[in-house]
C-alpha cells in the first residue's frame, strides 16, 4: 500500500510537469487554432536559460526560474508578433509549417550555444523529506506545490478577472471578442507570454530530475499533445486533468508493467480514448 502511494506521488510529480506544458499549449491553441509545435522548444529553452542563470550568473534557483519565465514568455511574444501575427490571414497549414520551422531553429540555436551534451541542473532542494511516513525529495514536493499554486492563480486570473477572461472569450469567438471592445492583438501577446512562462517553469522544475539537453522537449511535447487531445483541444480543465491522468498512468505502468514501456503508455491511452470518445474527455455541452 505504501509503495502504491509512493507511486501516486511520483505520478503527481510527473503529471504536474505535463499539466504545466499542456496548459500553455492549450491556451495558445485557443488563440491560433493550431497546435503550436514550437512549444516543446520553448520548454527546452526555458531549461537552458535557468541553467545558465544559475551557472554563469550565480543566481539562486528561484530567481533563475523567474528570469527564465520572463525571457521565455518574451520569446513567445516575439514569435507571435514576428511569425504568427503576419500569418493570421494565411491558410492554417502555413502556421503549422512556421511552428515546425521555429522548433528546428531553436533546437539548432541551443545546440550551437550550449552544445549537445546532457547537463545537470543543481537544486537546493535535493534533500529527502519525510511526509506522513512517505519519503520523497524536496524537489518533488516543490514541483507539486508550486504547480498547484500556479494553477490556482491561473484559474482565478482566467475566471475572475476581466483581463484573464479575454483569453477565454477570444478562444471561443474571436470576432465576438473584438466586437465587445477587446483588443485581440494584446490578448494574443498576453497568451503567448503566459504560455512561454509556463513552459519555462515546467522545464526549470523538471530539469534537476531529468537533465537539460537540446532534445529535452521532444517527448514532453508529444505527450502534451496527447493530453490536449484527451482533454479536448483548447480546454483548460482538460489540460490539467489530462496531465495528471497521464502522470499517474505512467508511474503506475512503470511499476506494474515495465519501466521500459512507460513512454508508450501515453499513446496507448490516446488510441483507447479516441476509439471510445473521439471528441476528447472534457468537451462540454454547448461547445460547437
Amino acid at each position, binding site marked *: 500500500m505504501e509503495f502504491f502511494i509512493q507511486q501516486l506521488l511520483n505520478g503527481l510529480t510527473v503529471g504536474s510537469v505535463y499539466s504545466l506544458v499542456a496548459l500553455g499549449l492549450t491556451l495558445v491553441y485557443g488563440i491560433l487554432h493550431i497546435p503550436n509545435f514550437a512549444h516543446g522548444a520553448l520548454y527546452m529553452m526555458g531549461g537552458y536559460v535557468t541553467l545558465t542563470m544559475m551557472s554563469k550568473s550565480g543566481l539562486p534557483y528561484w530567481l533563475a526560474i523567474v528570469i527564465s519565465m520572463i525571457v521565455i514568455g518574451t520569446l513567445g511574444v516575439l514569435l507571435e508578433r514576428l511569425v504568427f501575427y503576419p500569418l493570421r490571414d494565411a491558410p492554417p497549414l502555413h502556421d503549422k509549417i512556421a511552428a515546425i520551422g521555429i522548433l528546428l531553429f531553436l533546437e539548432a540555436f541551443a545546440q550551437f550555444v550550449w552544445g549537445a551534451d546532457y547537463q545537470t541542473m543543481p537544486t537546493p532542494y535535493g534533500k529527502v523529506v519525510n511526509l506522513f511516513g512517505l519519503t520523497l525529495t524536496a524537489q518533488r514536493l516543490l514541483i507539486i506545490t508550486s504547480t498547484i499554486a500556479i494553477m490556482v492563480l491561473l484559474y482565478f486570473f482566467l475566471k475572475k478577472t*476581466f483581463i484573464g477572461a479575454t483569453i477565454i472569450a477570444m478562444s471561443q469567438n474571436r470576432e465576438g471578442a473584438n466586437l465587445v471592445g477587446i483588443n485581440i492583438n494584446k490578448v494574443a501577446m498576453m497568451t503567448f507570454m503566459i504560455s512561454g512562462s509556463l513552459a519555462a517553469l515546467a522545464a526549470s522544475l523538471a530539469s534537476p530530475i531529468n537533465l537539460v539537453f537540446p532534445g529535452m522537449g521532444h517527448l514532453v511535447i508529444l505527450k502534451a499533445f496527447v493530453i490536449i487531445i484527451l482533454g479536448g483541444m483548447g480546454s483548460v480543465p482538460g489540460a490539467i486533468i489530462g496531465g495528471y491522468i497521464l502522470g499517474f498512468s505512467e508511474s503506475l505502468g512503470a511499476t506494474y508493467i515495465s519501466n521500459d514501456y512507460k513512454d508508450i503508455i501515453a499513446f496507448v491511452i490516446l488510441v483507447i480514448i479516441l476509439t471510445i470518445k473521439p471528441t476528447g474527455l472534457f468537451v462540454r455541452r454547448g461547445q460547437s
Partner: protein
Amino acid sequence: MLELRNVSVQYGSFTAVQNVNIHVHEGEIVVLLGSNGAGKSTVFRTISGLNKLSKGEIVFKGNRIDRYSPDRIVQLGIVQCAEGRKLFSRMTVYENLLMGAYIHRKEKEKIKQSLNHVYELFPILKEKRNDLAGALSGGQQQMLAIGRALMSRPKLLLLDEPSIGLAPLIVEQMFQIIKQINKEGTTILLAEQNAHAALHIAHKGYVFENGTIAVQGTSQELFANDNVHKAYIGT
C-alpha cells in the same frame, strides 16, 4: 452622427458594396433593407472595422474612423450585434453579459445597472443566467446577443437582422424593445429582411440592391413606393 461617404468594400476582386452614402442622425432609427447578399452585413462589418473599405470614408461625430481597429470603434460607442450572434458559447449567459461591459470593466456600479436594465428588457436572460450561452435556443441567443451589445452602453447600436429566427409573436416584441432602446437615447442602425415591421419603427431607410443603394427615403416614402412595396413588403 454617422456618415458613410462613397464607401466601397471588396472581398478580393469582388466588389460587395459600391459607392454607398448613408447618413444617420443622432436619435434616429435607420433601417437597411435588401435581399440576401445585397451587402447589408458588409456595410455593418465595415463600420465596425472588421472589414476595411477600399474607397470612401466613414465619419463618426466629426472624426474619420475607417482606419480604426474594431476595439477602438467600440470604445467610441459604436457597438454591433452581428449576424451569427458571435456569442461566447461555453460561457454562461451572465459571463457573456459581463464581457459585453468589457470597456466599462473598471466601473462596477455602472455594470450592475446595465445588467439590471438588460434583465428587465429580457427577463428570460435573468432566468437562464447560469446556463451556457451555447445551450440557449436560437431566439434566446439572439436576445443575449442584443443584451451583450447593450451592456457596453452604445451611443450607436448596429443590429444585423435582430428578428432572424424569432417566432412571429416574439418578432413583434423585439421591435417594441428596439423602439424602447431608441427612446432611452440610443441611435440605431438596423438591417432587416422583415421590412414591414422595421419600417414601422424606423424614421428612414435605405434599400440595397447588389451592393448599391437603389432607393432611400423616410419610412412613409418607402411604404408608399410601389417597387419597394412589391419587393420587400408584399401585399
